[in-house]
């Protein structure tokens, strides 16, 4: 098993005729994702990468049948409308790749998702990848790279940084440790599926034996993961690294979410809270593979 994406999920790309949409549709298809079509208003009846393009998501649904996932490659100011359209049509999982989506637009999407019982990853996400089964978004960049970097195994990987999602999984792979699924939750302050929710999904996935997490300064996501561990809702081992040692209060470091505001969201606070509930917090990023290996050996998984 894996979470969020596998070879059975039927996927469309919103914004499939754009520069990124086109390139990433190709990547996803080549990696084995079951892409069934795409949507761009005003471009219906065309084809991209051999896939049919529709004017609206509803039309795609009516023509192709039920759609499980939509991946959005849409300019930030238009994301709200596109996301609402997909959920209205019945799509239950969205992957919102673009960054710079206004925060109140994300709040509106979050509310609509709640109403519809749908979920979304992102915004500002590199996506989700289940090794050898499928990819949503742009993790790996090229199908060939993704195949050579990642392989299936017992670890669930989640991260607030896109690049780190790939590198963490790659360095684990170099130590012989494969992954069930990689999730980049997105770099923004508000994301649809933050770390605590992803960790809960991994908890419910029988193939995932341990969870590796890259956190960073800002937001309360890591503290919420600690709460879940404390409450016994997450019992699988969590190996975590928290970035941002050199960061300053009040200054944002790239990610909109990476800002310490009013003394909240500090690295020290997150590390202390996670250690308190028994998570394995590593001081050096490079130690993640060895600590994970040790944890898995103790569980007789490796």
């Amino acid at each position, binding site marked *: 098993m894996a979470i969020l994406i596998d070879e059975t999920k039927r996927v469309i790309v919103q914004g499939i005729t754009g520069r990124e949409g086109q390139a990433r549709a190709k990547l996803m298809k080549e990696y084995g994702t079951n892409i069934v079509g795409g949507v761009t208003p005003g471009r219906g009846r065309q084809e991209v990468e051999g896939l049919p393009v529709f004017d609206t998501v509803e039309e795609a649904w009516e023509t192709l049948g039920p759609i499980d996932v939509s991946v959005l490659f849409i300019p930030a100011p238009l994301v709200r409308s596109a996301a609402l359209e997909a959920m209205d049509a019945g799509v239950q999982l969205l992957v919102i790749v673009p960054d710079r989506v206004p925060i109140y637009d994300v709040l509106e999407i979050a509310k609509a998702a709640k109403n519809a019982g749908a979920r979304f990853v992102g915004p500002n996400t590199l996506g989700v990848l289940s090794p050898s089964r499928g990819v949503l978004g742009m993790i790996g960049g090229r199908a060939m790279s993704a195949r050579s970097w990642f392989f299936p195994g017992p670890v669930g990987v989640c991260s607030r940084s896109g690049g*780190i999602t790939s590198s963490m999984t790659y360095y684990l792979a170099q130590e012989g440790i494969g992954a069930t699924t990689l999730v980049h939750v997105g770099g923004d302050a508000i994301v649809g599926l933050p770390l605590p929710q992803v960790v809960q999904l991994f908890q419910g996935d029988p193939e995932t034996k341990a969870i590796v997490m890259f956190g960073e300064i800002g937001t309360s996501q890591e503290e919420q993961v600690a709460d879940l561990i404390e409450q016994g809702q997450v019992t699988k081992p969590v190996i975590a690294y928290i970035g941002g040692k050199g960061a300053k209060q*009040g200054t944002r470091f790239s990610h909109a979410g990476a800002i310490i505001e009013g003394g909240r969201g500090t690295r020290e606070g997150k590390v202390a809270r996670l250690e308190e509930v028994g998570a394995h917090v590593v001081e050096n*990023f490079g130690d993640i593979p060895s600590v994970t290996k040790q944890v898995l050996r103790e569980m007789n998984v490796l």
Partner: protein
Amino acid sequence: MARLHEYQGKALLAQKGIPIPGGRAVSSPQESREVAAEIGGPVVVKIQAWVTGRASLGGIRFADTPDEAAQAAEDMLGMQVGGFTVEKVLVEERLALEREFYTGVIVSDREQAPVLMFSSVGGTGIEEIAQEHPDAVASAVVDIEHGLRDYQARNLVRRTGIHGRLQRDLGGLLVKLYDVARAWEARAAEINPLVLTADGKLIAADCRVTVDDYAVFRHRDLGITFARELNRPPMELERIAYGVEEGDYRGTFYFIQMTDEFQQGEGVVGFHGAGGGGSMMSMDAVINEGFRIANFVDTSGNPPASKVYRAARIILSQGPIDGYFGSGSGVASQEQFHSARGLVKAFLEEPLTVPAVVRLGGNSEDRAVEILERVNDYLSAPVEGYKKDDSPQFCAQRLKALVESHTPPAEPPTGRKQPVAQRPYTFETVTNGTVTFDHAVCATCETKICVQECVPQILSLNEEGCPVLNITLEEAKKGRCIECMACDVDCYFQGSGGGFVELPIPGLEAYREKRGRTG
């Protein structure tokens, strides 16, 4: 900046009908005197700066007469606080306080919604007050779809033990505060203190409003020219960098200057990260080796070579750094040769005189490192490229070794310049760049590498064997030319040198001249 000054925030409150004290912001003692005279009574003069505890810094003063108000302004304008030069003071009527409250709307990542907070005890040190008097504080999640209803606000106030008319008035004001936050898309909008005056009026005595950086484009009326969260005003180079980012939506370019005061030999390096998490991790690695960093930069999200070039030029326009450190997550999904070309072009033109170590791990890393290291044939300083199996720690150690063994030249050598073309063929790019081919030179070129390596394949050879566009000038300008820099960098390395791309960075030359770094 997306964080507003007190006087700017108050203007928004007033627009939604929240009472604010009479007065206005001024930038001279004379104006301060005039405003105090208009008010015609005791006033308070406050520095406009994003620092907490202004009173203890001498940033808030009472004045009973216009002369005293002028004196206060005189003392405060030009004051240095928290990296700030005070440029404006706010002169306002002094309020007769009966009671102080706190209220705020903050976008909560935990709730994925705006959260409204109210405290029946307000004033400085609200965090401590909240801890000491938990009963005085109430909060409620606002439904973004329906907004904040009047009765919800009143119930919130009720939970802090306030009843009757005051509850009704506060409830009404809280609804207006939510309207402010929603209308201008504030990540935070706080009034502290919210004052009840002796004659029973509610007035916002101070406020703090931070607008979402990503929504600034919808609020031109705010006049925000620098939508970046910093705890001080932007430096000149940061403004120049912001201009680059604003004009080019492809990929991300983030630049923060950490220090501007250092000398050669003090171990300060230029830092060029890629990807938020990877940048932070790499920054930690280079700091662990004993370096200080002059700046934080992140170019990621598949930026074109031109953007990486501009970032590198800006990094190298800072003070006399001892080295250049580039590193990202290590396993980038983007094609890394774009970044390599951008760096090479910047290093050649500068020219780079200090060691550079760049970790280019990820897609097409072999090609990226090959392009990068080729620059060593043209520079006096060593440039080393690394890949995904080289850790940030190892790369930082390499930089340390190179910096220790390298002596920068006393006289800076001249960098690569745009050659004067005899028979120029030119077209413009999407960021106002100009691609020039000197067909007199191109005709003699044996490799025609530009046509071969052009990523979007928009170049063809004409009858004479010279590169020309196979699309229209308009299409190139609209973005079909992605500024991959192959016709510049690869031509310089492997062709006849007939191709050059000029990429302007508005304000940079003037800045460098001022700082004595021409070239």
